């Protein structure tokens, strides 16, 4: 799995590419752990190019969410492919994660309070 990390305003955007399964879950966990260690607690996972996720991948996402919560941070997801969406529905994780249709929508949700005009 490829992970491209970019800073985008207040949140850190991780664009994931490839399969999210047992073999790759550790790589994602390590990437997020490094961010948390660097006090970057607002994390967005852009899943646009994740074409496969299985039970190990889901488990990794759940444990990341818990870890981020412990650090008083926030985790958002976006661009769930139809298959990924399907598995989120079956497991009802769609009710647990904060999911946006696009990365832009997710990033906007992190933006600060609008200025009062």
């Amino acid at each position, binding site marked *: 799995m490829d992970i491209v990390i970019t800073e985008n305003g207040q949140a850190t955007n991780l664009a994931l590419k490839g399969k999210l399964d047992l073999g790759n879950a550790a790589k994602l966990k390590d990437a997020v752990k490094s961010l948390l260690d660097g006090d970057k607690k607002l994390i967005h996972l852009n899943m646009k190019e994740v074409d496969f996720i*299985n039970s190990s991948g889901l488990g990794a996402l759940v*444990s990341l969410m818990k870890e981020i919560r412990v650090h008083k941070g926030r985790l958002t997801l976006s661009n769930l492919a139809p298959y990924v969406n399907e598995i989120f529905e079956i497991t*009802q994780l769609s009710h*647990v994660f904060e999911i946006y249709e696009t990365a832009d929508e997710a990033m906007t949700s992190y933006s600060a309070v609008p*200025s009062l005009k």
Partner: protein
Amino acid sequence: MPGKESIINDLLNQLASPDFFEREDAVRQLGGLQQEEAIAGLVMALEDEDRGIRELAAEHLIRIGGDTAAQLLTRFLGHADISVRNLAAELLVKIGREAVGALVDALDSPDHDIRKFALDILGPIREPATVGRVHDMLDDRNENVACSAAEALGLIGSSLSIEPLLQAFQAHEFLRPQAAEALGIIGDPAAFDGLCRQLTVADPVVLYSVIEGIGRLHHPGAIDILAPYLDHKEQMISDAATAAIIRTAHATGREAYRKLPAEKFKRFLIDGLSSSDPATVQFALAELRYWNDPEVIEHLVNLLQASEGDMAIKVADVIKSIGQPAYPILITTLQRAEDEDRTRLLEAVSQIADCGLATYLADLAQSTDADLRGLVATVLGKCGATEFLPILRSLTADPVGHVRVAAIKAIGWVGAQDEVDRLLPCLDDPFADVREAAMGALILLGGRKAIQIFTEDLSHINQERQRLAAVALGYIGEDETKEALMRAVSHSDPTVRRSAIESLRRIGTIDDIEPIRMALTDEDSLVRKAAVTALVALIGARAIDDIRVLLDDNDIWVRYHTIDTIGNLGDARFAPMIIPCLHDDQDIIKIAAVKALAAMGDQSAIQRIQELSTDSNSDLAAAVEEATKTLMENAHG
């Protein structure tokens, strides 16, 4: 062949026809001509008695735009019929910068209404080059025109307008509120000193506008200057000062809030929750999260009770930020709430994933109210702490089905592998929702134990368990599940065979596709359809030689699905195998073939498709029209 002029004249005459369709046709044709004479006709059609025709003409005018259209439209700004006037104004705003020349010319009109409307339109167009001309209008002999000029300058937002607006403020008492407001909207701190000098005015309406204007400049000096007005005898002045100081503090640093009396700030924020301005509501929500105050919490809980959707999520998030002090009030309100309030509150509280709330809610696990027990399970699950597992376990045996569903889902979310055995009996629950929830939780927990259970379930005595197992193994998706799924493709039950094929398609990488290829000849049509989808998903166009035989399948839906699947490959090389389907006995197959050929982009198929264009089946004729259009568009790049 008639000349263009003659055509336009005919169309202009046609606009006067008593027949709606003739007039509508004339507008459409004029819209397509894009000539000045045609624009005049479209502008004329804005006065048509039928709203549909007026809107059609407007649509074309916006598309054509340009100075000519704008010049003609400005004449309508003085129209006696207010709906025509408003439509012209709306069009001019949409035409935008191309209309500026015509609007500036209209400022010389002897009709004060036209001058005023022209200014009302120039403001939203925000063209900086117009400020000089608009400055002149501040001295217009008509007061309404001068006020519109001030408003327009605010919207155009040029710092060059500061001095003219301050001079107009001094010169014309009637436009003081508009001038002060415009200076605020321009928002340039350079106007600060000039506006502060006007704080001596006696008229409370003007003073209100001046204070509000100062608040919008985000000048750090505003806080000390406006502080004395916090205790003004007029409530509106005091409120304006509070709002202005908050705006300034918001832009220059939160520490400035300390200058405000806490009670006033709190009141401002609470009032802000019911503001019609979304930015003010969001600001109030963002600030209220720092208030641990029973009155604030009560307002937020009441707001939560009345909110839905995105707003409910935001308010719930603020309550979560306040945390422990808010939860007892939230829970008490929840217990008292009735009907729709209760439903909304249950939904909103279930969004709060916080162990602090879970701790409070845990006590309600024994409530006689099933909705509350369900909520407890959901919040405990979202919190994700293993310490709540004993409560969740007990709720999996709740007498009410939806509570069991919530508890089972929650155990999955907590991710406790040791719970796999406990969830097993839930697969035999009398309620389908509970069985599905158990499958979802077991997929989420995954691991060897779950794989073993589902693999064994493929030969379970209960057919439903067999089907759930084939589905679940696909979603668990580990390498160990593939072997069991491959075996299940030749299971005795067709629903299991189909689920196994769909699961293998989801996993996507399998070493041996032979069992799926064999399934193309399965006795069950749904299995054959699943095999077509899976083969194409697994090996793409290489599946074509295997699946093409199903174009002659005796089941109409297998044929339909195969045509559709081949069409979706988008490869014109496969068109010859679809073309014979255009002559199938069944119209639905012909429609599928037409759509597939369009998706393949095969230009040579156009003629064959069009042979069906006169078919008596309107769905087929419509598909032919759509497909022809698609193929022609592709042909023209």
